[in-house]
């Protein structure tokens, strides 16, 4: 009786003629298995380094954006604060989230965990996010008691993947102070132009909603003709639509709507 062990099986497979069907399948399977293990292993091992790099880049963008906003240095100097206040908010309640430690807050993990995120119905999910984290880390800049600037992380699914951005609003909570795209995977040369400083420079001074409170800011097809429009990018209609939907969604009732209402009525106390 032939001894049957993994080693003899291995030898028997190797001894098969190369053109036999069994060997073809076995080799294809082994190569796929080894390559899959290699790729997944590298990704898992290197993920922390890459996340640290991305976080550093986000911080850099935040700093760069702060440096570009007009008059920001004056406000910083007068308020005595050398940086922004980071606050974690509960989106649905429009209030400071109790019991969420900023040190452990991780947006991606919170958005994926059913316990800390909300599934959006197809009608509400205009930004294509699927799930939305219940908590977000926002940044405030205050001069005494006056709110001067609020930075809100926003995201939407674009043509090539998720678009992440920081939207800065002035103290009136309706005028855009700036938009900084912090992450995207749009088509190079077309949709990817949203990440260019020239396009982002179109945003400051635009207004989110009109007097009736309707959210109107969007990326136009072609040139902008009002204070609620941003010049579109030729050949990147779907990216432009995604950015428009991103603003509509995050300024609306499922995004920062409750928080902005609370800020306007003065009930939000960070």
């Amino acid at each position, binding site marked *: 009786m032939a001894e049957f062990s993994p080693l003899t099986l291995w030898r028997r497979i*190797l001894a098969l003629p*190369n*053109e036999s069907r069994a*060997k*073809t399948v076995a*080799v*294809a399977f082994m*190569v*796929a298995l080894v*390559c*899959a293990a*290699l*790729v997944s292993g*590298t*990704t898992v091992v*290197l993920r922390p*380094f*890459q996340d640290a*790099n*991305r976080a*550093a*880049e986000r911080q850099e963008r935040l700093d760069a954006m702060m440096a570009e906003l007009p008059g920001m240095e004056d406000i910083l100097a007068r308020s005595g604060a050398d940086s922004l206040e980071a606050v974690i908010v509960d989106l649905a309640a429009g209030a400071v989230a109790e019991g969420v430690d900023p040190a452990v807050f991780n947006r991606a993990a919170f958005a994926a965990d059913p316990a800390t995120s909300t599934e959006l119905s197809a009608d509400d999910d205009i930004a294509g996010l699927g799930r939305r984290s219940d908590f977000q880390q926002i940044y405030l800049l205050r001069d005494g008691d006056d709110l001067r600037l609020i930075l809100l992380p926003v995201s939407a699914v674009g043509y090539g993947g998720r678009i992440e951005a920081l939207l800065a609003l002035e103290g009136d909570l309706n005028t855009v102070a700036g938009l900084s795209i912090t992450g995207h995977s749009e088509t*190079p040369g077309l949709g990817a132009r949203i990440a260019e400083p020239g396009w982002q420079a179109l945003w400051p001074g635009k207004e989110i909603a009109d007097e009736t409170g309707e959210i109107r800011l969007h990326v136009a097809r072609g040139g902008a003709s009002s204070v609620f429009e941003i010049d579109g990018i030729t050949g990147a209609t779907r990216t432009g639509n995604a950015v428009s939907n991103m603003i509509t969604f995050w300024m609306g009732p499922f995004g920062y709507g409750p928080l902005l209402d609370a800020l306007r009525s003065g009930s939000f106390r960070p």
Partner: protein
Amino acid sequence: MTSAFRRLLDPVIDNNPVTLQILGICSALAVTTSLATALTMSVALTAVLVASSTVISLIRRHIPNAIRLIVQITIIASLVIVADQILQAFAWQMSQRLSIFVGLIVTNCLVLGRAEGFAMRNGVGASALDALGNGLGYSFILLIVGAIREVFGTGALFGHPVLPTLAKGGWFTPLNLMMLAPSAFFILGLLIWFIRTIKVEQVEHEGTAIISADEARKP
């Protein structure tokens, strides 16, 4: 010269993958705007090429002929992903500048060409040397093109100014054409002309523009 030494140096000038075989042109255009990106790309490609040729040569007797190309490309693609991930982890800025071109090493004919043309029928040592030689040949051309484009396009090398530009009070006007992809075509063309003027045997014979597969495989 010993045969191992020749195997290593032959692809650098005499049988250069870029200037003689005209392979890997796409990345040679895209990543040569500066010497630093050209160098990173060269290192990444050489590493992938050596690793893939070694692995494929190691298992060459057990690769069924019917699926050999798929097996080769799977191995190459996995190694490219690993190289890209390593760059993203330890050279983030550089990987952002190279954008998709590290990932596109997988479509570089040079890598598959060496796997199919050499590693499939030669031993591990010879395959690794051949891959290293071809990687060096590719790197050599990339570095020349990258250096020319960076010096004449920005007046700097590795970011350090070598020619004083007008903007900084010097005399040199940067050639904006050098920053655009067509300039790499011009430089590559001139380079090929130059090499073939010196090494006349590299000139293609009339009517045989495409070298037959057997001829190309000759060492």
